[in-house]
């Protein structure tokens, strides 16, 4: 169990990091869509935005979320229950919504400087690369 301080520290981070082994295990169980939850690094690890996880958790009921956590934590449970998969799908949905909002804000922005800054965020989200130019 996380302490309150640990929990707040986790929430304050921009991304949660999944190891390559975790990504591989989740992909084996829930399919390739797991890769849509975040940015995959060259080493196979993945960064998943904390706000998308929070949004996904909010949209699942407490019972479903508890079930999802049990499924994610127990490799032996055969995923007859949809909760683990639902959590993955909700994170993907939250991420897509965030990108859609970023695109609309970028398209509506009249200031060229701000618009380009917003584009850099979209570019990073789409390609998973922070282009330094």
């Amino acid at each position: 169990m996380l302490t309150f301080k640990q929990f707040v520290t986790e929430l304050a981070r921009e991304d949660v990091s999944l190891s390559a082994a975790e990504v591989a295990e989740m992909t084996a169980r829930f399919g390739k869509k797991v890769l849509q939850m975040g940015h995959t690094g060259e080493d196979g690890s993945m960064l998943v935005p904390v706000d998308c996880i929070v949004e996904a958790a909010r949209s699942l009921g407490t019972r479903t979320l508890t079930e999802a956590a049990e499924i994610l934590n127990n490799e032996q449970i055969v995923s007859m229950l949809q909760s683990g998969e639902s959590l993955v799908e909700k994170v993907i949905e939250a991420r897509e919504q965030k990108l859609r909002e970023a695109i609309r804000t970028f398209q509506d922005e009249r200031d060229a400087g701000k618009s380009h800054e917003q584009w850099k965020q979209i570019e990073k989200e789409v390609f998973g690369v922070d282009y330094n130019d």
Partner: protein
Amino acid sequence: MPYIDWKRLPRAVRTHLEDRLKDRSISEDDMIRLTYWVKTKPEVPDGEWCKDFGSFKLAGAGAIPKTFLLKGQPCKGEQI
């Protein structure tokens, strides 16, 4: 078959994408399609290839993504 090396996407090509998304020649839905496709780590042919997203196409050669073409512009290479 190689994987696309997105780090090698030229700046001019990204600027073109930025401009076309800004003026809405490229739709929000098709940008989402591109994003999902990128996340699947697609394998591409060694030679020239082309991927159609609806309002735009991405063309490349092997691991190198080369250009974005708007709807109606012809695309060389293998359709993927």
